[in-house]
Each structure stands twice: as structure tokens, then as C-alpha cells.
């Protein structure tokens, strides 16, 4: 009995102590970081905060591995990384906490979705203004599309370095099953009407030959941007801005959008468009491709390595090809264009080592240096990370995945597409062609600036109104004429103010 009470007391004490320890763990982290500091004292230390999530081989971590050692040796900058949460919103929360608590990293990476965060913090003086400081770094400047600077410009000053995605600004392609076309003796469709004819045939003429009417025509899901080629045939992309009469206007309220909705509504009424689309989520949409129910759809440039690959595994006969988006009645065509950046490197206004940071980024912006992070180097290079076969390079996927973290240490992305890498991921996927095709038909968003004050205030309500109205028009719950009411309330609910601000931005930019 006595013994048991003693144990319970001990347990209670342990609980109490651990509850308190939870609050002070932050101090522990700091001590740990201090210990990690590199022994050589002549190097400039740069503290970076990046998103985490990678796994590491035994004995390595984000601050102790061949790549960061190489980076330190090559650039003379002692990069010390604080590894954050893997999810973007948690990462941003942590960053906010760090800023609020005064434990401010020199360099941090902001996802493009948090662009307004950058603006808010630039306004507060938390972010280093970079214009004037960048000109000396030619490689860095060359890695950024000129229009991408708009996104990091606040009050005329530049507050970050926009970084491109792996696939440059590629987004979607339209894919079709060649084997189904051949079976039904149809040609690759070019115009919108031909697309609809093919979709109808795919739905009604049993292209998979199983004797059941279980195939679909056109498929879509609740995010309209993801089947943008139907809108692109009318030259408008939901949520985007287009140039008209020398100024910018929202595509959502243009007469072309009304035409697009009327056309898509007809597809729905004729049952060519999958009638389940408003309640379909992305995963279910891709599943329809993977399990051979759909033979014509819009998907990511990398689809060949995801749902299309699954489709091929399920059905070796499935012969998917990427084709140009449909040409609409007015001769327009395209898919939504991607932004010219996927994230932003920001530097704290309190950083004392701006030149060292920019030097580091400049070094990373050189394509040959980037290759060291993709294909490895020295003993981690040939025959380890990749093998050469008949002149082409093949990634060794075991080591490529095992050392996947290495690409997180590569903050920059040169403008030149890394064709060698895309090829090395598997030439059968034709990723280079997929990227080029998508970029060729991308209809860019003409507004590239940071969110205006009225956007911050009203955009979410306007987006909801659009989503609700467009969905109802397409499924016929509202007549197409309801579009005009939508335009009126769009303008009244802040749309007019936003248009004024965007027009000012555009005038100033020109």
C-alpha cells in the first residue's frame, strides 16, 4: 500500500513538471541552435527559417548534411537553418510568433498565397527593402521574371525575391485518350464544338467496350479554375483580370463570361458535362481518370506521374496524350496561366548581413549550381544520385528520395527550365513537353500586383458570390440572365472600388 502511494505521488510530480516544461522548451531550442554553430568564425552566419517536412538519413539533419556543408564551403556563408512546420499555415503561424517574440530569422520563405502577409509586414517595417541592393547580383536578377517583381512591390519598394516553381509557370493541360478516339474512329478535336462531339461519343458509344454505359463525357469539379479550358475558349478565366480598352477589368463580369456560362449550361443540360460536378472534390475527379471512367479532361502538367500513371497501371491500353485546349467560337483558347513565382524569399529588416544573404541567393540562381542540388555532386553525384545510360541521365530513385531534403536547401529557381531534371524523372512522361504546352496556352492573370485594400476587405465575399452564381447558372437553377444581376451586385459589393484601385495600379505601372 505504502509503495503504491509513493508511485502515485511521483507520477503526479512528473506530470506537473512536464506541464511546466512544455512552456519553456523554446529556450531549449535556442541553446541547441547555439551549439550547432559552425566552428569557423570568419564566415558570416545567416539564420534562415524554412518549411520542414523532409526525412533525413541516419546521422543527418537539415544543418548537418553534405549539401549544406558544400553550400557553406562554396559561398562562405554559414547558413543556419531553423526547420519549421511542414504545413504552410502552421509555418506562417510559427513565423508570426518568431517575429512577435523578437527571435527573428534573417531570411524566410513566404508561400505565394501569403503575399498579403508580406505587404502587411512591409508596411510595418519588418521586411528589408531590397531595391538598389539587388543590381549587383546578376544571376539573381536573371532568375526572376520582370513582372514578378510587382508581387513584392509595396509603395514603390521591393520587399522580397520571387521564386519560380519547378515547372516554371506551367499549370494545366487538356488530356485525351487516343485509344478511345481510335476505337470510335474520331480525330483529335480542335474546336470547342468538336470537343463536345467527342465528349458525347465518349459518353454514349461505350469507348471502353465493356458493354455498359458507364463512361463520362466532360468531367469537372468544384474548383472552376481546374477546368479552365472551357472558359479559356471564350478568353475569360474565373477570378482573373483581363486587359480591355487600355485598362484592367475582372473577367468574372465580362459579357464573354456570360457566353461561356450559357455554353457550359447547355453542356450540363445535354448531360455531356458530368452532372455530379458541383459536389465532386479533386480526389474524386482524378479518380474518374485513374479508373478509366473519363477519357477527356484537364489536369496538371505533372498528371503523367499521378492520375494518368495510375490509369495506365489499371489499363495498359490507356494511351493518354496532351492536346491543345479547345478553340472557342471567337477563336480564343487557353488554360489558366500560372503565376510567375511560387514563393517569396524575404529578408528581415533587422538582418545585419544582407550582402551575405544576397550572395548566397545569387550563387543558388546559377543553373550549374542548382544541378548540384538535383543531381548531387562529388561522391553523391554520378552513379549515386543518377546513372548515365546511352547519353541520357536517369535518376536513381532510391537515393533521390532518400536525399529528397536536398532540394529544400535550394532556395532559388533559375528561369531556365531544368530540362535535364524533368527528363531524368522518366523520359516516358515527356514532362518537358507537358510544361511547354501548358505555358504556351496559359492565359495569364493581367493583375500581378499585391492585393489592394478593397480586395483584402471584399474579395472573399465576391469570390463566394461568383462561385454560387456560376454554379447555379450552369446547373440551371438560375437562368443565364441572372448573370446581369450578378454583375450589378458584384460592382455594388466592393467590385467598383476594387476596379478603381486596380485601374490606378495599372495606370501607374504603365
Amino acid at each position: 500500500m505504502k509503495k503504491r502511494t509513493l508511485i502515485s505521488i511521483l507520477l503526479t510530480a512528473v506530470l506537473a513538471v512536464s506541464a511546466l516544461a512544455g512552456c519553456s522548451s523554446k529556450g531549449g531550442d535556442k541553446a541547441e541552435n547555439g551549439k550547432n554553430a559552425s566552428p569557423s568564425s570568419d564566415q558570416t552566419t545567416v539564420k534562415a527559417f524554412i518549411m520542414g517536412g523532409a526525412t533525413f538519413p541516419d546521422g543527418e539533419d537539415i544543418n548537418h548534411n553534405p549539401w549544406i556543408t558544400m553550400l557553406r564551403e562554396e559561398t562562405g556563408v554559414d547558413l543556419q537553418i531553423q526547420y519549421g512546420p511542414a504545413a504552410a499555415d502552421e509555418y506562417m503561424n510559427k513565423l508570426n510568433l518568431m517575429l512577435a517574440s523578437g527571435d527573428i530569422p534573417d531570411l524566410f520563405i513566404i508561400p505565394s498565397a501569403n503575399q498579403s502577409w508580406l505587404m502587411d509586414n512591409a508596411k510595418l517595417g519588418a521586411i528589408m527593402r531590397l531595391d538598389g541592393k539587388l543590381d549587383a547580383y546578376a544571376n539573381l536578377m536573371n532568375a526572376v521574371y520582370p513582372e514578378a517583381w510587382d508581387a513584392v512591390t509595396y509603395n514603390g519598394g521591393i520587399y522580397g525575391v520571387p521564386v519560380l516553381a519547378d515547372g516554371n509557370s506551367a499549370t494545366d493541360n487538356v488530356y485525351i485518350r487516343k485509344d478511345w478516339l481510335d476505337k470510335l474512329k474520331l480525330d483529335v478535336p480542335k474546336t470547342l464544338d468538336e470537343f463536345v462531339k467527342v465528349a458525347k461519343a465518349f459518353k454514349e458509344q461505350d469507348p471502353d467496350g465493356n458493354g455498359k454505359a458507364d463512361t463520362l463525357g466532360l468531367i469537372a469539379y468544384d474548383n472552376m479554375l481546374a477546368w479552365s479550358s472551357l472558359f479559356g475558349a471564350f478568353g475569360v478565366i474565373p477570378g482573373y483580370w483581363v486587359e480591355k480598352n487600355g485598362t484592367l477589368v475582372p473577367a468574372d463580369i465580362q459579357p464573354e463570361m456570360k457566353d461561356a456560362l450559357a455554353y457550359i449550361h447547355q453542356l450540363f443540360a445535354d448531360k455531356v458535362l458530368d452532372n455530379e460536378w458541383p459536389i465532386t472534390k479533386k480526389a474524386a475527379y482524378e479518380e474518374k481518370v485513374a479508373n478509366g471512367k473519363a477519357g477527356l479532361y484537364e489536369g496538371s502538367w505533372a498528371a503523367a506521374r499521378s492520375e494518368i500513371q495510375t490509369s495506365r497501371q489499371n489499363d495498359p491500353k490507356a494511351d493518354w496524350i496532351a492536346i491543345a485546349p479547345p478553340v472557342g467560337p471567337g477563336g480564343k483558347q487557353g488554360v489558366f496561366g500560372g503565376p510567375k513565382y511560387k514563393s517569396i524569399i524575404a529578408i528581415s529588416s533587422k538582418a545585419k548581413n544582407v550582402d551575405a544573404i544576397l550572395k548566397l541567393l545569387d550563387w543558388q540562381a546559377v543553373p550549374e549550381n542548382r544541378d548540384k542540388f538535383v543531381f548531387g555532386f562529388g561522391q553523391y553525384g554520378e552513379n549515386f544520385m543518377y546513372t548515365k545510360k546511352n547519353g541520357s541521365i536517369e535518376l536513381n530513385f532510391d537515393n533521390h528520395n532518400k536525399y529528397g531534403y536536398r532540394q529544400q536547401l535550394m532556395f532559388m529557381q533559375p528561369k531556365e527550365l531544368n530540362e535535364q531534371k524533368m527528363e531524368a524523372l522518366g523520359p516516358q512522361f515527356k514532362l518537358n513537353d507537358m510544361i511547354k504546352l501548358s505555358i504556351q496556352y496559359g492565359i495569364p492573370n493581367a493583375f500581378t500586383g499585391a492585393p489592394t485594400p478593397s480586395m483584402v476587405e471584399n474579395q472573399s465575399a465576391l469570390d463566394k458570390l461568383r462561385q454560387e452564381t456560376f454554379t447555379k447558372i450552369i446547373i440551371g437553377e438560375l437562368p443565364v440572365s441572372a448573370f446581369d444581376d450578378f454583375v450589378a451586385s458584384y460592382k455594388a459589393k466592393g467590385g467598383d472600388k476594387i476596379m478603381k484601385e486596380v485601374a490606378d495600379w495599372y495606370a501607374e505601372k504603365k
Partner: protein
Amino acid sequence: MKRGVLVKGLEKTLRADWMLYLFLVPGVAYFIIFKYLPMYGVVIAFQDYSPFLGISGSEFVGWKHFARFFTDDEFATVFRNTLLISLYKLVFGFPVPILLALMLNEVRIGWFKKTTQTLLYIPHFFSWVIFGGIVIQVLSSTGIVNSVLQFFGMEPVLFLAQKEYFRSIIVISDIVKESGWASIIYLAAIAGVDPALYEAARMDGAKKRHEIWHITLPCISSTIMILLILRLGSILELGVQQVFMLYNPLVYEVGDIIDTYVYRVGLTEQKYSFATAVGLFQSVVGLILIYLANGLAKRFGKGGLW
């Protein structure tokens, strides 16, 4: 003099039951550190809060965010939807765990009871992302419900796209997911009922239904009342997950609730102050309701929380 006695009394109880007080320490520390100390954070509901400037540095704007919420076009819709869905959940969902507990309590076959309980508890441990996915699948045009309808020669219905079904789907799926888990507390309460009462009733010739009606239910009525009062306190807080998972533009009118609205307007746009203001409003309404319900419970002699 009196004070001296009090201190002495405290000293005495502390010495006698020090171990019990020690057990209390982690709980009290938890509430102070994680519940009471963060409360000063509600200040940001009255500021244009910026994480960089912190609470001391952010500009004070008074009722601005509350005014914006109450004058927003969407306020009436989301408030009505929240209240309706919450009331439906209360009216139809609250009694279910009690019934389940009463039924489970009467099951005499051990393995059957255990299996049923486990099956009932499992959905609670799924997140809404998964459970919502199951609901979507079940109700899809090729799902089990529509297969049955088609078997009987009826046209398939896209339930989730219909305004008239949406709230029912929300309420029913919530009942399916959470009732089993919620019945645990009632089972525990039932287990605490003195068996002598049942024996005495049986001697007097009471049937099973008499036992349930005249012994079990009255004995657990204070538990039911406490849970009901607590439930009223969160009447405006439905949680964002379930509705967010299941709704779509076609049912915004009937399905958009305060939590999804705050998610859209407050968090994706990082308007911390606005989100806090709405959260504070929800809590204040909850607190008022708890007070009212507690007062009523006491008036009708059912105890209450305090």
C-alpha cells in the same frame, strides 16, 4: 480571530489531504496557463492586430470588427443557419446518446455489447475529412443510397446538392458519428445507480420499462441536465470541419455557418482581429445561454452546474 480559525482550518485540511491537493495541481496549472492567461488575448478583437506589432503595439479600434460582422450582408444568413443547424442537432441529436446508453445497458450478451459499443465509438475517432468523405461517397450518384433508389425504379438524387436535404444530412451524419461516443458518459452515470433500487423495484413487480422510466432516468437526470447546459453554451459553435467538408455553392444559402464564414473571411485573409471578434461574440452568447439554462434548471429543482 475568525481569520485565524480559517487559516488554521485550511492548514489542517491541507495537512490531512495534501495528497489530494497535489493531484489537483496539474489540473489547476493547466487551466491557469492554457485557459486563463491566454484570455487577455481577446483584446485583439478590439484592435487592428498585427503579429509583428504585438498586442501592445497594435492600434485600438473599438467595436469596428463587431460592427463589420453585424452589418455584413451575410450575417443574417450565417446566423440563421448556425442557429437552425444547432437547434436541430440539439433536438434530434441530444436524446440519441441517452437512448443508446439505456439500450446498451440492457444488453446482457457480453460479446455483443462489446462489439456494438466498439462499432459505435469508431466513427468518433475519424476526422471529418474522412467521415465526410464517406458521407459524400454514400450519397453520391453511384453510392449505396442511390443504388437502392434505382433498384426500386426511382431516379437517383444528388442529395448534397439539394437545399432541402442539406441540413438533415448535417444533423444525421453528426448523430451517426458522435452519438456512440457521447453515450459513454451516460453509461458511466447508469453504472453508478444503486442496484438495490432495481432489486426493490423488482420485488414490487416492476417491469423493465418501469425500471428504466422510474429508476434509471431519474437517477441520471442531473447528468443529463449538466450536459444539456454545457451543450447550450456552445450553441453558436458548430465547428468548421463538418460543414466545410460537405457543403458546396449550391447549398451555401442553407449551409453556410458562422464558423465557415470566419474561416473564409477571417483566416484565409489573415484577419485575426475579425476572427477573434466573432469568436468572442460566440462565446458571449454561449455564456448568456449557460446562465439562463442554469437558472431555469435550478428553478425546476434539477440542480444545475453551480
